[in-house]
């Protein structure tokens, strides 16, 4: 028992916290510079289930086709992409239950199909959008 009677000198115990903020800010800067905001963005779509295809009467379809050259046909008419929303809107005013069908040829560039999908999506009334493909040989999807 060595310390009986001996007066202890109480040393002030201190943790130096002055540099704490520096350390923390260093870490922040590290995280800020290494973070790549993975901004996921795109066009959402829900696919139909296989085998659950609903037969839709041809009259109820708004047909938009994209051919291999990237030309867009609304029904049988050749149209410019920016004409699509107006035409779709007009059709949906006649019958709001119509389904927009985008038929793309398999050799058509993906970009054109997205362009059409984008135009159709800009019509808020167009809720039901369907995608389909035109095969090169078999003609019609």
């Amino acid at each position, binding site marked *: 028992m060595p310390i009986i009677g001996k007066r202890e000198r109480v040393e002030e115990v201190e943790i130096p916290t002055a540099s704490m903020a520096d350390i*923390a800010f260093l870490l922040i800067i590290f995280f800020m510079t290494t973070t790549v905001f993975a901004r996921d963005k795109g066009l*959402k779509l829900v696919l139909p289930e296989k085998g659950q295809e609903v037969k839709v009467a041809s009259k109820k379809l708004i047909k938009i086709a994209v051919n291999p050259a990237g030309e867009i046909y609304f029904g049988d008419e050749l149209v410019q992409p920016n004409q699509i929303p107006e035409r779709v809107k007009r059709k949906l005013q006649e019958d709001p239950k119509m389904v927009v069908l985008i038929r793309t040829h398999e050799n*058509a560039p*993906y970009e054109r*199909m997205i*362009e059409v999908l984008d135009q159709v999506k800009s019509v808020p009334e167009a809720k039901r959008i369907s995608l389909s493909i035109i095969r090169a040989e078999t003609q019609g999807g």
Partner: protein
Amino acid sequence: MRIKAKRKPKATIPTASMSDIAFLLIIFFMLTTVFRKETGLKVVLPQARMTERIRKSRDIANIYIDKDERISVDDKLVTPEHVKMAFKIKLKENPSVLAQLKADKRVRYGVVNDVLDALRDARAFRIIFATEYPRKG
């Protein structure tokens, strides 16, 4: 003009709470950071005006299709058949998985359609076509 003897008040900035603020920020950044799992393929995304931000970054699984029609899932080059298998497994692990299709804008639609078919077979119905906001000007 008479100059009054100014009493100089001691100017101090309280720095004691500085580290608290800093650590709070660190924790925020650590929690919001989603590390990208794969390097993917180099693609030029198509542009679309109706592009939406997708909030649930953690539930997203990417499929890359580059302009040479190679398909990549989890950094492996695969066929549409494998896409189906991969997504069946992914959906089992996390049923709220969202398939994000990062296809190059020059790719033929036929390839995209094959992948879409594979996703339907795997019952991954909720998909996202990755697009960019159109550049202004």
